[in-house]
């Protein structure tokens, strides 16, 4: 089989192009088509970008990812990975995939599982050994090389799943709810891995229904509702970036509050009569601000992610769906 040239180049062509994707699953004995799981979805993902699909349960995120991977056949629309039709196996030569809540053969060890996938990828023995070790180290599972997967916790299996997705040194990484089932440390580790992959020029597309997970790493996010695309937001251009906003209840004399904020090098983005909203670029700034406020007895009734806009929009979309008909889940 001829492997397409997916090696990272600097061409402007998108790594992934989805055009007019439409999919309704067949249901029941006669196989009648139900409501569309995905309806006329179009987007493209540029090289080195982290792109998120954000949507409620049953919105069509997993169906979209499965269509990209050739696991389901779209009724309409085209999907190309580096210009190769996604239905062709060779389009997946440099694609890594982590399914939601991955399950593996219980009797294999983590090392054997990765070795098996390495064989499917056509790697020779030396390369398999090297990649297995590297990938298990990357996901913090190096010490579990010989552990039976049946004895692994859900979080450990998620990490092994991530390791197998990284095995081929993919150009395109496709992750379905990659942070589900992980503890806070694991979630942070996944974030770091995704950002590390991005720094290596890898394109990442992942699905999630958790807004902070998306805001923490995504460059752009497609909000999907009932299988349709609501909008695509560029989080890189969003004011505040991936930071936070703290709302401080200010006393009548605001001078002391202004001094505290200025001392921390932060700025007030909104001044209401009794409440000021302060932008913090990251957890460090936020922590210092909260400590300073605590020392000066300044109440901080609200702290939220600077991407609160995204959450508001997402939630507004969800609240609006009660009146709409139920859709098919994947």
């Amino acid at each position: 089989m001829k492997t397409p040239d997916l090696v990272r180049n600097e061409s402007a062509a998108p790594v992934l192009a989805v055009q007019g994707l439409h999919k309704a699953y067949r249901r029941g004995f006669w196989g009648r088509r139900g409501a569309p799981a995905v309806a006329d979805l179009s987007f493209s993902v540029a090289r080195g970008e982290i792109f998120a699909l954000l949507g409620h349960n049953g919105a069509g995120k997993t169906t979209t990812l499965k269509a990209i991977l050739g696991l389901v056949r779209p009724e309409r629309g085209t999907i190309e990975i580096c210009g190769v039709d996604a239905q062709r196996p060779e389009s997946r030569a440099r694609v890594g995939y982590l399914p939601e809540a991955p399950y593996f053969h219980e009797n294999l060890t983590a090392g054997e599982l990765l070795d098996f996938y390495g064989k499917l990828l056509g790697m020779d023995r030396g390369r398999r050994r090297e990649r297995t070790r590297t990938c298990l180290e990357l996901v913090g599972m190096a010490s579990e090389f010989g552990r039976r997967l049946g004895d692994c916790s859900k979080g450990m299996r998620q990490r092994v799943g991530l390791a197998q997705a990284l095995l081929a040194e993919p150009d395109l990484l496709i992750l379905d709810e990659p942070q589900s089932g992980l503890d806070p440390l694991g979630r942070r580790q996944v974030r770091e891995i995704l950002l590390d992959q991005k720094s290596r020029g890898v394109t990442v597309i992942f699905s999630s229904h958790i807004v902070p997970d998306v805001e923490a790493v995504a460059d752009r996010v497609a909000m999907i509702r009932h299988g349709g695309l609501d909008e695509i937001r560029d989080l890189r251009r969003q004011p505040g970036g991936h930071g936070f906003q703290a709302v401080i209840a200010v006393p009548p004399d605001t001078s002391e509050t202004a001094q505290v904020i200025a001392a921390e090098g932060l700025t007030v983005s909104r001044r209401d009569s009794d409440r000021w909203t302060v932008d913090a670029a990251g957890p460090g700034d936020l922590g210092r601000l909260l400590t300073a406020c605590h020392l000066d007895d300044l109440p901080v009734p609200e702290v939220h992610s600077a991407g609160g806009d995204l959450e508001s929009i997402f939630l507004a979309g969800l609240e609006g769906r009660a009146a709409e008909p139920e859709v098919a889940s994947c």
Partner: protein
Amino acid sequence: MLTRTLAVAHGTFRETVRDRLFYLVGFFGLALVGATTMLSPLTVGAQGKIVADVGLAAMALLGLLVVLLVGANMVRKEMERRTITTILTKPVGRGEYLLGKYLGLGLTLVCMVGLMGLLYVAAVGLTPATLAWSHLAAVYLVLLELLVLTAAAILFSTLAGPALAAVFSAMLFAIGHLGESMLDFGAMNGGWQQAVTQVAFRILPDLEVFNVRAAVVHGDPVTATHLLLATGYAIAWIVVFMLLARGVFARKEL
């Protein structure tokens, strides 16, 4: 293509070995010892026939058990557990995957029947009966039948859930061995029953081709021509079942 197919086959073989399927070989040994010990006093001078009859029947039934438990469950289990998605999202074609699965389970059956064959030969050798070429031919034919049934089970596994696939496979086994009786029954009743039994007989494999137990027990020879024709017949049915399975599986949404 071959590398990926063999990788899937190796993985499948390893899974079945670790699922302790080979314990069935132990049951086979116990069945042989039990049959020889309990029945021999009742059949003075015919111990060899008893061992041959019980041995070949036990081999076929234990093999069938593996096909029903593993083959009929194979693809559907991977679909339900979604282990299949991480495999098929590698550059592995669906046909390669199915073939690998078939070869993996086929290798398991070859090893199992091989081990049971050794026990069988040893058991026959311990009786006054002479070990003939036909004993080995019978073991080989049992293996061929199991390989045909495995391909059918994989086809059913792509079409239906594990329970239904196992039922279909068992029905195929039963019809395959009762074809002649079915034809007689149809001819006796005439009308649509005759037509149905004739169609069923023609479109399903005749597994009696692989059953030479009676010949072995009575000391009749099994000819090389029979073995060659049976091999060709088995290969033809395996190809048919696997092509059908591939056709169904290619359209499957995972």
